[in-house]
Structures are given as structure tokens and as C-alpha cells.
């Protein structure tokens, strides 16, 4: 049997900030979920099942928080499912929720992902309280240096990505970091954190949540008829690979290549740069934009940086990347993947406001995690047959 179509009819997110001390954990997820339900013109009772995603429980000090958050998310008397696939978890959360609809298990599923980094100390938790944490920047810096060495990319490419994403964030009312006077000079003048990544080329620590309402084909058609454009899930895929072994290429992980090939094949995409209108890629450090453009087969090996340098990935370029401002502008870790997936859906629904790409019909989103070894990806479209085949 083939699986059933799945539509996205509601999207909500919080205003992401360093400290959302005005809300509890329950209040934070409820803020995003309520906005998604309002967007879908639904109420809590309309939801059949809830899928919750977040990165390590040690970050907030709440073990298995799906238990406590069952009440806040209206999941009493419903299935409540908890996903955790490292940094890719937000993406996996959306994929698991879409599978519940596509498999025919449920008609309407609410996916929620969050992180409230201010409740704890991520650096401490990454080292499991043993103080031995390298941190994400330190872990990824060697991969980025290796990319620069391999590709011969000019050193300005990283700062250019940072400027572009921070300019996009100025158009996104929910983005955490808004740096009005951002410039190449300002980025390059910021302190070097983990060579080659400077302070302004790095993601912030954010409190935030994202929620998405999924429904079946009937629900999607109803929303469409009511003038609320749905986004259709055209394909999704995940891949994992071990962190380290001889022969693994962490700069261009095989899992990143395979996950892209998988979704392209499902949709029938043979030329992603031409056939996809825009992309939200998980770029927590500037250099990851050209690295993912290559690993996901949008650019040839060694040529991803040229797309950045030529402005192709700018909001008005031919392949806009991270229209929302990306992870560089808001990073509630567990939610960051679902924010990418949600932004792609907003683009094809035409609801992205000032950061809308004109006429976007097909958008991709990606999230990755751990030592660049967990990948989640989906492609969404404004219709089930975006290429009119």
C-alpha cells in the first residue's frame, strides 16, 4: 500500500529569547501550540495525538517531560509520544507526527518541540555535569576548517552567511537575535570563538518552542477550501551513522548525502537547485551553509561557497537558504529542527510575511544532530503535484 497524503494546516512558534522567564515550561510549549491551533482553526479537542520532541532532558533538569507536559498540551486521554534524536530531533518530531497521519493511525496530530535553555546550563549538561564538555562549536570547528582547506573557500564566506541570516532575522518577528547594524566588518570584528568561527557566526542559546498541526487529505482540502492554504508533505527521510570510525567523512557525511537522495527520489527531483524554491538548513555555525549545500547535492563538491559568495542563497537569490534567519538567529535546540521544517511549510503556504520567497511552491528543510551524524529532512509543497506531472 502507498501511504496517505498528509497536510500541514497549522503552525505556531514562540518569540524566542535568551530567557523566557515569563513562562513555565508548560507555558512555553502551550504558547506555540495555541498559535498552531489558532492557525489551523482548531481547538485542543480536535487533536487525536501529540508528539513531543526535545534535546537532552538534562538541559532543563526535567526527566521525560512528556509526562509533566501531558496536561499543558491537552494530551490527557490521548497518545503522547516523545522523540529524541539529538539536534535533529525537531525534524524527527515532525516526521514521526506526519507518519502517524500518513500511516492512517490518526487524522489530526500535533507536533511540539521546545528547549528552555535558560532553565539550565547546556554546556554543563553536555559534559553530564563532569565539566568535560567541548561544546558544539569546539566539536564542529575541525570539520569546518577541513571544509575550508578542501574547498579553497575564501575566508569571508562564513561571515557572509552570518550577515545574510542576521539580515533575514530582522524580517522575522519571532527571531531571537536582531542585530540592526549587522555588517561583514562587524562580524569579522567579533571575537574568534572556535577558529574559523567567530562570535557573530555562532548560534545563540534560546528559549523557544514550535508547534505544527498535521491532518489527512480531507483536512487539508477543507483548509484549502476555507482559504487557508495547507502545505503538503511530499517526502521525508531520516539517516543516522556512527560518530567516528576510520573512513568516515564528517565534512560530507554519507548520511547527509543519503537523506537528500532519499527525499529527492521520493519527489522525483533530479536537479534540486532548479526544482526546489528555497531551503531551511540547520546552520548553527556559518560554514555549515556551504557544507550542507554540497552534502545535500544542491551544489557540486567544492562549489557550495560560490552559491554564498554570488548571493544565490540570499532572500532574493535563486536558491534562498534560511529565510527565517535560521539557527544562527534562534536556537531553542530541541525546537530548532521543527522551526526549519515549519518555515519550509510557511513558505509554500505563502504565510512567511516579510521573509516570504515569492511564489515558493516546493521547499526543503533539514536538521542534523550529535557529531553531524543524525539527519532529518523533508520536502513540502503547495500542492500534492507541484510539478504538474
Amino acid at each position, binding site marked *: *500500500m*502507498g*501511504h496517505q497524503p498528509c497536510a500541514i494546516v497549522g503552525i505556531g512558534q514562540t518569540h524566542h529569547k535568551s530567557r523566557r522567564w515569563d513562562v*513555565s*515550561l508548560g507555558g512555553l510549549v502551550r504558547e506555540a501550540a495555541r498559535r498552531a491551533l489558532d492557525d489551523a482553526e482548531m481547538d485542543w479537542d480536535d487533536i487525536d495525538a501529540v508528539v513531543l520532541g526535545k*534535546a*537532552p*532532558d*538534562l*538541559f*532543563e*533538569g*526535567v*526527566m*521525560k517531560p*512528556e*509526562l*509533566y*507536559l*501531558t*496536561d499543558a498540551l491537552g*494530551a*490527557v*486521554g*490521548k*497518545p*503522547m*509520544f*516523545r*522523540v*529524541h*534524536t*539529538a539536534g535533529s530531533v525537531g525534524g*524527527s518530531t515532525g516526521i*514521526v507526527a506526519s*507518519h*502517524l497521519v500518513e*500511516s492512517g493511525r490518526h487524522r489530526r496530530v500535533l507536533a511540539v518541540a521546545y528547549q528552555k535553555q535558560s*532553565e539550565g546550563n547546556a554546556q554543563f*549538561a*553536555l559534559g*553530564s555535569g563532569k565539566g568535560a564538555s567541548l561544546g558544539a562549536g569546539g566539536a564542529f570547528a575541525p570539520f569546518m576548517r577541513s571544509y575550508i582547506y578542501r574547498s579553497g573557500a575564501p575566508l569571508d564566506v562564513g561571515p557572509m552567511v552570518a550577515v545574510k541570516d542576521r539580515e533575514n532575522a530582522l524580517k522575522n518577528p519571532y527571531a531571537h537575535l536582531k542585530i540592526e547594524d549587522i555588517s561583514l566588518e562587524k562580524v569579522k570584528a567579533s571575537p574568534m570563538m572556535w577558529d574559523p568561527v567567530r562570535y557573530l557566526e555562532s548560534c545563540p542559546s534560546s528559549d523557544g518552542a514550535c508547534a505544527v498541526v498535521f491532518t489527512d487529505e480531507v483536512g487539508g482540502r477543507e483548509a484549502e477550501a476555507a482559504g487557508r492554504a495547507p502545505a503538503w508533505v511530499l517526502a521525508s*527521510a*531520516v*539517516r*543516522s*551513522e*556512527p*560518530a567516528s*570510525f576510520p573512513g568516515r567523512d564528517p565534512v560530507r*557525511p*554519507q*548520511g547527509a548525502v*543519503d*537523506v537528500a537522495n532519499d527525499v529527492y527520489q521520493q519527489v522525483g527531483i533530479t536537479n534540486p537547485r532548479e526544482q526546489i524554491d528555497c531551503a531551511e538548513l540547520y546552520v548553527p555555525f556559518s560554514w555549515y551553509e556551504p557544507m550542507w549545500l554540497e552534502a545535500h547535492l544542491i551544489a557540486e563538491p567544492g562549489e557550495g561557497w560560490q552559491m554564498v559568495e554570488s548571493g544565490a542563497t540570499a532572500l532574493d537569490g535563486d536558491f534562498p537558504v534560511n529565510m527565517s534567519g535560521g539557527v544562527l538567529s534562534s536556537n531553542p535546540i530541541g525546537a530548532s529542527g521543527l522551526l526549519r521544517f515549519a518555515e519550509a511549510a510557511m513558505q509554500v503556504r505563502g504565510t512567511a510575511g516579510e521573509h516570504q520567497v515569492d511564489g515558493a511552491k516546493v521547499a526543503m528543510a533539514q536538521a542534523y544532530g*550529535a*557529531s553531524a*551524524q*543524525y*539527519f532529518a529532512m523533508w520536502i513540502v509543497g503547495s500542492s500534492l503535484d507541484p510539478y504538474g506531472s
Partner: protein
Amino acid sequence: MAARTDDDIAIIGWSQSPMVRATNKTETQMLLEVITGAVEHTGITRAELDFTCAGSCDYVAGQAFSFVQNIDAIGAWPPKRDSHVEMDGAWALYEAWVRLLMGDVDVALATGSGRSSTADPGTIYPMEMDPYYLAPLGVDAMTFAGLQAQALVERGAVTERQMAEIAARTRRDAKDNPFAQVSGDFDVDVLLAEDYVRSPLRRHDLPPITDGASAVVIARGDKARELCERPVWITGFAHYAEIHYPGLRDLTKAESVTLAGKAAGLDEAPIQVAELQTAFTHEEPLVASALGLGPDVEINPSGGPLAGNPIMSTGLVRIIEAAARIRDGGTHRALAHSTSGPCLQQNLVCVLEGDER
């Protein structure tokens, strides 16, 4: 019985580790052994696993991203379609089952693993409560279980003697379970002479602290028949949650157990065996009653969680034990139950059936 179609999914292989108080193996090593065991039991290789899903818990492991190391045990090279739930392996199996329902891949693996010896469960478990109003009280799982047991005793739903009899019965049954940690013959009067740990719970009412892991292989219809002479079909699979705050619930009821049983089609035909994740003695009559199980249903013939309680794997082990009873013959239809959270907050039911013979 309806003819099986390609959309039906069956359990075709499994493996569990010995249940021990403390292993000197890492969680990854435990998983390496049970995954190898499960694929060998199935007669396949890791390369034939189209999808894998692990269930484990960072707090039990005492480490953030603890499951990331466990990917080494899966053998995810070339890279695999893979996922992880911060839930018992029974829910990992649920995700794997949904993944196979999608129809594009045929074989999946689910695992559950936990090393409770890493830390003191009494310190960890208060952390799963509401962080603002309940966690600061430091109330551990035993105390919440005690509150529920007391409510059941006061309601007349169970007596302390019946609870001791459940402890004695399950540990006697566990003598035949080579994986069991606690087994043997116990005199109910002797058990009842002991002091309370948390009134009305005595030591025998509590599960042991256990390190352990388990793995289950499932496959879609035709593939299941191709790989396995006696597939065990998953005919129903559902889970539900209820209110987190024990104070807002009637603790003498387990409504989400009833919901899960109904949604899993439990009422459609009689079952012979029920493997329940009832880690405390008083939970057995509560869950059995919520599922409407009659006296003819054999409960926890493996000994159940009172004989070995590898947190994050305990539920998946119930599914293995129920499947094993069907595979071994004598049982046609069985159910497995898993739970999470204070006072049975979240419950899962999996209904299994063999082919007519």
C-alpha cells in the same frame, strides 16, 4: 480469523539480556549483544534492517545524548533510517511498527536499554515530576506507588495478603525464566511479617533494580512469512496518557490502560496470556481489572517486572515474553502492556496473535 495481508506486521525475532543488579558492560555493549541476538534469532543480518528505533533514557544513563553512543551497536553503516525515543523500548517498537505501516520498507528493529545501577533511582525519579510543584517535594516512584497502593487497599480493591501472594506467585513462576533476577519460593506469612518500606508496600511488593536490554525484529506480511516459520502478528497496538498530577486522578482507576486496551482491539477475541509491566504488586489487579482480564488469563508467567525490571526495556521485554508464549505454542492470543510515569500515568497495550494451527 482474517487472512493476513502484506499490511499486517509480525514479530519475527528477539533477544533479551540476563537481568542483573549491576552489569560491568556499557549500555552499548548490552545492546550489541541483544541486537546480534535478535538478528541471529531472525536469521538475518544487520544489513537487512531497514529501520531501527531505540528506547532509552539519559537520566537513567546519567549522561546527555547517551543514546548517541548506542548507534555503534546498531551497525548503522551504510547510514540507516533510525530514530530514538526517550521512552521504554515498547514505544520504540510502536514507532517502528508505524514506520512499517507506511509500506515502503519491510524490516525494522526496536530496542530498549537501561542501566539503573548507574545511579540511585530514588534520586532520579523525582525529576520526572512537574518541576515546579512536584519535583521539589522529592517524592520518588516508591512513594507514589505507596499512595496508589493505599488508595486501592482502602477501596477494598486489593489486600496486603493478596499483594504478597502476587509477589510469591510471580517469583515462583520466574524460576522457569532463565533471564530472571529475582526468583524462588517465598512464604506469604513470612513476607507479611516484614516491615513496610512505604506503607502499605513491603520489600516484596517492589521490583528489583535491574540492568538490562532487549531487541525485537518486526516485518511486513510477506517478508515476515519469508523470514519466519511462525510469525507472531501484531493485531493491535495503542498507547494513551492521563493527567500527570496524581492528586487530580482517582488512583484506584487506570483509565488510559482501558483506553489502550480498547484501541488495541483487546475485546475482539479472548486472550490467554497477559504480560503486564506491573512493577509493584498492587498494580497487577488494577491493570488486569482496567483491561477486563478474567481469572482464566495467565498473568506474567515470566515473573514480570517483579522478577527483573530493566527500566526503559521492561515494557519491550513484556512484548518479547508474550510473543515467546505464542511462538512456543499453547497460546494463540496474548497481550503485552507497558507503562511510564507516576502511578501508571501513561500506558501501552500490544495485542499479539499466532497463526491458526
